[in-house]
């Protein structure tokens, strides 16, 4: 079953979903809807992702440790999200996370609840043919913030508890064969987190319940292949985050929202569109896996995720 090329590109927007799910996590793969696909005006893609992440080793500063009082920390999340094609060159995204974090050892209780929600705008100023293929460039502006009332300072906290304003760029080159490469980077400005204690000690004291969270940059390099019929694509990626400031987890202590959290990871994902429901929209299945290679004040997380995407026409342009 062949999909018209433009339809493929519309449907492929939902690649975004694979990382939107992680956008809202502190161990995020990336912080922006991170592909080059733009939805045409009038199309909506609804999706839900389930992820299962776990680590039994973490970095206390730059020292890798296991902690018998944690064992293995398993974090599961369910992330419903949607993307809306406002104009062909402007898309909006919304997403929210529900998370459960459970240790396998120790006396501390696990946590669960709504985490953060976010909204992004993606603007495509660059879209042109280039040699035997095409080149695309997008700018993404995003805003996320906590919606659950989780305690950010809790050792198994669901999130950082602060707002995150991000600005990023994406550049992709797609060869006519279907192979493509993509690079992206984003700058994340974090807000202030409120904790219950009105004194805390990082590398010095603070007589306050306000914690300034340092800004972070993240980046991803991706290489992949889309089959010409559009029925599936698969890609591998290398991603990283660097936090500009913050402090290292103190000796044998719990993490804290203003830690300096850095990491690199590798992963792969694939998206398959089974040829069904023609005329009612496009259904897709995503699978993704990633593994943290290096880190600072983060867990060495193995993450597996799967989800469903459903793209359909709401107004105007029909596919």
């Amino acid at each position, binding site marked *: 079953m062949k999909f018209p090329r*433009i339809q493929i590109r519309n449907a492929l927007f939902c690649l975004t979903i694979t990382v939107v799910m992680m956008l809202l996590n502190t161990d995020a793969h990336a912080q922006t809807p991170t592909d080059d696909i733009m939805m045409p005006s009038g199309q909506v893609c609804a999706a839900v992702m389930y992820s299962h992440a776990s680590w039994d080793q973490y970095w206390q500063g730059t020292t890798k440790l296991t902690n*018998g*009082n944690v064992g293995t920390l398993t974090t599961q999340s369910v992330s419903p999200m949607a993307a809306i094609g406002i104009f*062909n*060159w402007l898309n909006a995204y919304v997403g929210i996370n529900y998370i459960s974090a459970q240790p396998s*050892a*120790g*006396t*501390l*209780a*696990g946590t669960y609840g709504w985490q953060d929600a976010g909204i992004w705008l993606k*603007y*495509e*100023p*660059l*879209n*042109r*043919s280039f040699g035997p293929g*095409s080149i695309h460039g997008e*700018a993404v*502006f995003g805003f996320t913030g906590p919606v659950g*009332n989780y*305690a950010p*300072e*809790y*050792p198994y906290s669901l999130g950082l508890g602060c707002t995150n*304003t991000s*600005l990023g760029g994406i550049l992709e080159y797609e060869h006519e064969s279907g192979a493509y490469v993509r690079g992206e980077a984003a*700058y994340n*400005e974090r*807000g*202030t987190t409120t*904790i*219950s*204690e*009105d*004194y*805390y*000690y990082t590398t*010095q*004291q*603070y*007589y*306050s319940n*306000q*914690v*300034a969270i340092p*800004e972070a940059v993240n980046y991803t390099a991706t290489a992949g292949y889309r089959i010409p019929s559009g029925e599936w694509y698969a890609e591998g990626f290398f991603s990283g985050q660097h936090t500009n400031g913050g402090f290292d987890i*103190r*000796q*044998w*202590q*719990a993490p804290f929202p203003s830690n300096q959290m850095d990491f690199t990871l590798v992963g792969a994902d694939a998206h398959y569109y089974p040829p069904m429901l023609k005329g009612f929209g496009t259904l897709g299945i995503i699978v993704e896996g990633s593994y943290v290679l290096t880190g600072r004040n983060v867990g060495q997380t193995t993450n597996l995720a799967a989800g469903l995407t459903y793209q359909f026409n709401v107004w105007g342009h029909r596919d």
Partner: protein
Amino acid sequence: MKKHLCISASACIAIFIVSSLFIQSCKKPDIPTQVTVPEYSFSSLDSNGGNWKPLLLTSNSQIAVSAPDSINSTAYQQELASMKSMASSLSSYQSNSIQYWGTNPLIVWEEIAQNLTAKYNLPPQPDATPDANGNYYGVPSSATPTAYPPFPFAHPPYSVRMSAYWSAAEFDALIAAWHYKYLYNRPAPYKTDKTVPTALPQTNLPSYPSENAVIAAVAAVILDNMFPLDSVYIDSKATELENVSLWSGMNVQSDVSAGDALGRAVAAVYIARSKTDGMKNAQPARLNGPHVQDSINTVAQNSFGWQWKNLETPQRPIGIAPLYGSVKPWFIPSIAAIRPGPPPAVGSPAFNTAVAELQGYANSLTDGQRSIALEWNDGGGSYTPPEHWNRIAFTSIINNQLNPLRTARVFAYLNTGMMDAAISCWDTKYFYDYPRPSDAAGIKTDIGLPNFPSYSSGHASFSWAAATVLSALFPGDAATFSSDATDAANSRVYARIHYRFDCDAGTQTGQTCGNAAVAVMKADGAN
């Protein structure tokens, strides 16, 4: 496929707007690293303060302070000229230091003590591999303070003792200072010479010996002893405070030298007590065979049918300071005599009721309850509950515009009262050696489980001793103190690391120890 222009004008404008929003949000807030102490004038100078009863000194003249030179002497005039020239041309560092120390340096020293406590309040991390005895954990040693784990481990028994010695020594030293101030009645330099520039409020307090120098010297000696690895920092702060007395036009050099000598001598009396108060034996050194926790556990098992154990992995073989209950108290004649009766037997109806309450919180904790549980945690990495209470006292001290002598009295009775409560609590904990809810009932917690037995609650003990003392000092704020102490005790039950009866028992002994401190305080001549 549509071809868009690479970058259109509207795109540029949009990106510019977004970037400027960004840059605006880049402003990081200024998070305070110090409690603001507004400059205030003292409600009273307590000219009779030299006659108040010290806590440890035998009299206000136990330490001799010789008479100062006359203000008409050449020596004094030279000092005055030298100080005046310093005070007339302050660098920005000097001005900032004067601001930093302000009108009540004792509050600033208490903050320094809080921050040093937080810095050193780190439970030892397990070694990668166990030693020949199967033990993973080192023990800090004052003999080798830099070996891992560094000395001290500033847990609550340690921090309350540190504060008690520091604040009681300050109080006694300032009683002596007030005695000599009014005995020698040397006027402040700005009284003798109206052209002395003063950067702090002028008062009628005689200036010899300098109270700031007394405060600095006592703090240096006691805190150097308690935090030896930070002695360079502590001594530099003491020197800075003594210099501030000169830079601000408050004192001349001989005022400062006499105050420094007096402070050091009084602190030495307290250090001598500290060497024999039993703290040396409170925490055994690294295991080398059977140890005190073993015998405590055996006795408890035989007497009561239960015993406590640490629930960490790897397991810590000894609790924190198992013999702290034998440390010398300040006001309680017999710690054993005020020890509460036993907790309910594990599995008894009273035990089951207490566990049911905890399970209720495990199933559904309100946001307000969780907030209290976290706000009062004051666990590893924090400044500990006793220092939390010292901070609560700041507000009342400032609002009542207390002079340094009265401020020292507040800290002295607050901390010695809390220390007696800590001794009683630790005596109780290791006498009954009662297992935690996580151990006896499998309850999960919202904060980390401290490394000592359950009954009774330290938070309840410290907090009710503190609330009792502070309410006697500041009756108008009594409702706040009671509410805070109630929250502190409840926090442990909301977090499910204590049974309700742990907190009830701690509340009782806390009030008993607070009342014992108040009884001595009310008879010290200050009211």
